[in-house]
C-alpha cells in the first residue's frame, strides 16, 4: 500500500507486542460486495461497501485509539510542529481543517496527526500517530494539484462523508514519528470564501470550552484532565483564523514561527 510504503515493518506479529490486531476483510453475502473491520475478531461497525475498505481501515484504527488509548487525553484536532513548537487545529467538519493541515505539511510543517491529538495529561506533550491524512471531496483534487509528488490512496466514493481519499504523510514527519512536541498555538481555522485573511485572538475561556468539547475522553480523566486542558490553554496563543486563500493562511502561520 503506497500510503504506508515507508513505514517501519515490525517483526512478525508472533514475536512481539502490537497495540492492536486489526483486519479489514471482504464479506460475501447477497447484494453488493462488502467489507468488515475487525479488532481481535470483534466487529464494532456494520459492514461497508468494498470500495471503502482502505478508508474503513483508517476509521477503524481511529476507533481503536479513541476506545483504548485513555492514557492520553484525546482531542479531535489536527496537530503539526515546526521548530519544536506545535499547533493544534480543532475544527468542525467542513471547515477545511484537513486541507489546511495537508497544505501545512507540504509547506514544511511536521505532521503529528490530522485527526487525533494524544496529549499527555502531565507533561502536555503531544505524541505523534503518524498516519495518512484523510481528504474529502474538493480538497482531494486541490491537494493532488498542489502536491503532485505526494502519494495518494484509492478514492472511496459515496461514503457517509462524501468522497474520501488518503494522502501519505511526509517523509520528514515519518522520520520523527517517535518525537513528541509541546503545543505553542491553538488555531481554529475556517475556510470562508470572499473574506480575505482574518485573524482574531480567541479568548482563553472560549478556547478552553472549544477544546473541551473536542475532547473524546474528558470523562475518563475527570478533574485532572480538565486542569490539564486549563494549563494547556494558558500556555498557548489562541486565534481564530478565517481565510479564502490557502497561501495567505500558510504565510501567516510561517510568520508566527518567526515570533518568539
Amino acid at each position, binding site marked *: 500500500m503506497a500510503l504506508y510504503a515507508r513505514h517501519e515493518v515490525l517483526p512478525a506479529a508472533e514475536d512481539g*507486542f502490537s*497495540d492492536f490486531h486489526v483486519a479489514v476483510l471482504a464479506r460475501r453475502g447477497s447484494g453488493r460486495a462488502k467489507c468488515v473491520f475487525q479488532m481481535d475478531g470483534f466487529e464494532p461497525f456494520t459492514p461497508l461497501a468494498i470500495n471503502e475498505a482502505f478508508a474503513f481501515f483508517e476509521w477503524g484504527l481511529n476507533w481503536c485509539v479513541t476506545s483504548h488509548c485513555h492514557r492520553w487525553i484525546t482531542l479531535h484536532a489536527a496537530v503539526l510542529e515546526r521548530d519544536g513548537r506545535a499547533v493544534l487545529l480543532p475544527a468542525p467538519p467542513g471547515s477545511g481543517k484537513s486541507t489546511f493541515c495537508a497544505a501545512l505539511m507540504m509547506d514544511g510543517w511536521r505532521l503529528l496527526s490530522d485527526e487525533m491529538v494524544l496529549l499527555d495529561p502531565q507533561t502536555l506533550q503531544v505524541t505523534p500517530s503518524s498516519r495518512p491524512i484523510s481528504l474529502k471531496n474538493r480538497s482531494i483534487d486541490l491537494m493532488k494539484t498542489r502536491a503532485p509528488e505526494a502519494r495518494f490512496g484509492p478514492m472511496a466514493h459515496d461514503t457517509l462523508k462524501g468522497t474520501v481519499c488518503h494522502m501519505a504523510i511526509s517523509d520528514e514527519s515519518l522520520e520523527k514519528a517517535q518525537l513528541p512536541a509541546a503545543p505553542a498555538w491553538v488555531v481554529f481555522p475556517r475556510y470562508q470564501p470572499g473574506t480575505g485573511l482574518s485573524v482574531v485572538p480567541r479568548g482563553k475561556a472560549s478556547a478552553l470550552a472549544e477544546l473541551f468539547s473536542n475532547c473524546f475522553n474528558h470523562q475518563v480523566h475527570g478533574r485532572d484532565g480538565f486542569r490539564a486542558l486549563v494549563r494547556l490553554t494558558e500556555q498557548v496563543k489562541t486565534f481564530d483564523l478565517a481565510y479564502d486563500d490557502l497561501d495567505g493562511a500558510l504565510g501567516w502561520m510561517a510568520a508566527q514561527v518567526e515570533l518568539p
Partner: protein
Amino acid sequence: MNGLAGLEPLLQTLKPGADLGALGEREWDLVVRLGRASDLLARIGQRAEAHQAPVPARVAVHLQSASLLAERQHRELALELRVIDQVFVEAGIPVVVLKGAAYALAGLDAADGRMVSDIDLMVPPELLPQAESALMMAGWISANRDAYDQRYYRTWMHEIPPMRHISRGTVIDLHHNILPPTGRIKLDAGRLMEAALPLPSFAGLRVLAPVDMLLHSAAHLTHEGELDTGLRGVVDLDALVREFSQDGSYFDRLLHRAVELNLGLPLFQALRLTRHVMSTPLPSGWLEQLAQASGFHAQSTRQAWLERCWEAAVLPRHPLLTNRLAPVARSVLYLRGHWLRMPPGLLLRHLSRKAMRAVFVSGADREKT
C-alpha cells in the same frame, strides 16, 4: 490453542504474587488481547501499578488506559451510591448492595481494577413497588419497553428489568432475591437481608455478610445462563475466597451457611471451577465435607460434564481461543440456566416465544437493509 491452556498467560498475571516483570513482549501481547476480551485488563493494570512492575512502555500505555477507565467507573459509582443511599433512606426502605458495587463499598480486593457497569441492589420483595417508585422519582426509569420482557422479569425473575438514569445513564438492577423465586432452589432472601452489614459512611446502604457475599457470587455464576463475563466471575470468587479466608473460621462458617440456605451444590460447583482455573487455595477435604453435609455426591458423571461445560464457557470470546466445545457448552448452560429458573412447561413456552421473536426480528432487519 485450546481451552484453558491458551488462557494461561492471562491467568498467571491475575494470580497473587504474579511476577509481571518477567513477561516478555510476546506474552504481553496475549495478555492485553485476552484481558480486553474478558474485561480484566484494568485489574492487571492496577496490579502492575501496585507492584511497580517493570512493564515495557508500549504495554504500559494499554494497562494505564484500562486502569483509568476502571477508576472513572469507581468514581462515578461512589457518587451514584451517595444518591441511592439518600433515596432509600428517605423512602424508609432497607437496601443491600450486591456484586461489584458491594465489593467496592466493602473495600475488598475483588474491587481492585474491577469494571462495574451496573449497580445491583436488593430490597425485600414486599417493598419492591415502593423501591421502584422511589428510584423512578430520582430519575431511573425502566429501559425496556417490551411488554413480554416486562412480564417475564416481573413474574419469573428475581430482579426487575434494568433501570437507566434519564440524564446520567447509570443502570440499576433492582433485585428482590438472589435466585428466581420459581427456581429449583427456594431461598428466603429475608435471611440474607437480616445478616447484611451496615457501612460506616452510609446511613442506609448495607452489603451482604462475607459468607453470604461468596454464596451469592457462587449462585450467580452457576445459575447464570449467559457467561460472557464468566471469567471475571471466577476471578471475583478467587479474590473473595483468598481475602475472607484470612479469618481462620471462615470455611467452617461458610459450610454451615451453605447447608442452612440450601446453597451447598452451587457453592461446590463454583469453587471447584474457581480452584481449577485460579488455583484458589481451599482446605483439603473441605469440598467433600461440603458435599456430604449438603447430601450430594462429590463425584458424579453429570457433575464432571457440567464442569467441562463451565471451563469451556468461561473462556473469553477471542479468535486466539479456538475451542470447538465452547459454542456447545454455552448453549447447554443457557438452557440449563433457564431450566433452573422455571418449571418445564413454562420454559418451553418462554423459549419458543424467544425463538419466534428472533426469527421475526431478524426478518424485519433484513427488510430494512
